[in-house]
């Protein structure tokens, strides 16, 4: 594997070497390495690009890494990955995609990830998007991930998604439905710079009794970048939902935040919050009194905010 690809794997999946456990590494539209375990199977789809990740019921403390690397200019990669998480299992899935652009043609990775989380299963899903490029590369780096989550009774999912650097244009869609007692927690971080745009749409249907959903989004918009954020919670049963979008806006950026709620029963308890503002001057001053320059202070505040 070339250095560029190794760097990207480190950025998106924290990998210096092949991971322990199950993995599937996809580079430039092809599977580059794969490992399965006794409890986790990875099968290539026959009707379309992508894989099925099948986790046996009761699989505890195992992990799956499925990073994607695009380092060919002009490549438009599209994958359909389906995850079948067996009842009562407790696993971590690390996905992530990195694009390294080197020419004047746009590179893109679009993925549809669908999760079928079985009864009382617990899953932590980490997804990081990252882009970089040669200094003279003019091709854009585009990513349009769609994540669909079906949580069965008592299932729990913790999603940590982030896109901190280098993606020019993104349209991220996340849809979830929750059965009785299911729990979904999403922590999403986005930073846009330059002329980038990022659109994020979250929808959760809280269908089962006593299910709960908490979506926390933190974004930073710099330069001339534009962000649109919509998150919708639909309370269709006795449930608890909370969605929060908090943005730091800088320079000439534009941020649109639209959390929305709907309730079809008096038993639904839903809250939304949204805040957009610049970095507070007193935060900068406090860090400067600790010896940081204004730029260092700004960097600390942003990295903490997006952490």
């Amino acid at each position, binding site marked *: 594997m070339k250095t560029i690809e190794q760097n990207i794997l480190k950025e998106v999946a924290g990998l210096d070497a092949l991971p322990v456990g199950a993995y599937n590494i996809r580079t430039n539209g092809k599977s580059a390495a794969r490992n399965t375990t006794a409890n986790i199977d990875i099968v290539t789809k026959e009707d379309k690009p992508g894989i099925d990740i099948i986790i046996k019921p009761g699989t505890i403390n195992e992990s799956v890494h499925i990073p994607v690397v695009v380092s060919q200019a002009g490549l438009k990669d599209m994958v359909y990955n389906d995850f079948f998480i067996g009842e009562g299992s407790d696993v971590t899935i690390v996905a992530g995609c990195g694009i390294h652009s080197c020419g004047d043609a746009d590179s893109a990775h679009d993925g549809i990830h669908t999760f079928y989380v079985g009864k009382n299963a617990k899953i932590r899903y980490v997804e990081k998007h990252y882009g970089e490029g040669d200094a003279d590369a003019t091709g854009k780096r585009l990513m349009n991930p769609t994540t669909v989550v079906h949580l069965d009774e008592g299932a729990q999912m913790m999603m940590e998604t982030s896109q901190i650097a280098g993606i020019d244009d993104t349209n991220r869609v996340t849809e979830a439905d929750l059965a009785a007692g299911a729990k979904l927690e999403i922590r999403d971080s986005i930073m846009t710079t330059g002329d980038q745009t990022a659109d994020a749409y979250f929808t959760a249907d809280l269908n089962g009794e006593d299910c709960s959903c908490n979506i926390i989004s933190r974004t930073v918009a710099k330069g001339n970048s534009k962000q649109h954020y919509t998150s919708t919670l639909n309370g269709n049963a006795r449930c608890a939902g909370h969605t929060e979008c908090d943005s730091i806006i800088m320079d000439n950026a534009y941020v649109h935040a639209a959390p929305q709620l709907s309730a079809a029963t008096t038993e639904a308890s839903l809250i939304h919050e949204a805040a957009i503002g610049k970095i507070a001057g007193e*935060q900068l001053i406090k*860090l*400067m*009194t*600790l*010896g*940081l*320059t204004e730029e260092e202070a700004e960097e600390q*505040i942003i990295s*903490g905010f997006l952490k």
Partner: protein
Amino acid sequence: MLELQNISYVTEDGKTILKDINAKIDDHFVVITGPNGSGKSTLAKVIAGINKPSSGRILLNGEDITDLSITERANKGISYAFQQPVRFKGLTVKDLMSLAAGKEASLNELCNLLSEVGLCAKDYINRDLDGSLSGGELKRIEIAMAFARNSALTLFDEPEAGIDLWSFQKLIRVFEKMVAGNDGNILIISHQERIIDIADKVLYLKDGQVAKYDTKENVLPEIMGGAASACSVLTDKMKED
């Protein structure tokens, strides 16, 4: 040593907050006191570089720092514990304490610093310095951050404000310890008699001017007598009390 030479501060809308302040802060432990609105916090901000004086010079150990930025002054050895602590989303107590110390602080170091202000490090270091902490907790962390810097000159703006009585007793002991040690100059804005009691000198600020700058024995009568010049309704009321 800090020297204030003819410091004046006038706001943009023309209001004079500080008028021709002259003082040499060369004692170990100096308290700035005075009525509300007398310019104490503004003076602290002028020293820290947050507010630029309209006129006058500030010297730190003989070096003119009037035109230095907040960062440059911090790096020259000025620390400033705010009266109202600042909240940060996403930065933890450990992050801030490490920034204050100028290095990654170990659990042991954090434990030493935070226990001085009555907090158990294990309960706090990974918590965000945000609205999930109470005003008193934030204030104690603010004070611990100033300790962590271990600077040549440390400014505390009303360290007692927002702290419960039990913690205040402990805080006094911390300041007493600082006085006993040789940890540079400490400049505290305070109204508390117990803090004034341990001061080497007291600077009494009134209407933006130095009304008296001397030992506490010489300044306290001035402060007590100061109320006599207030309006008759106020003095009558104070007599009733």
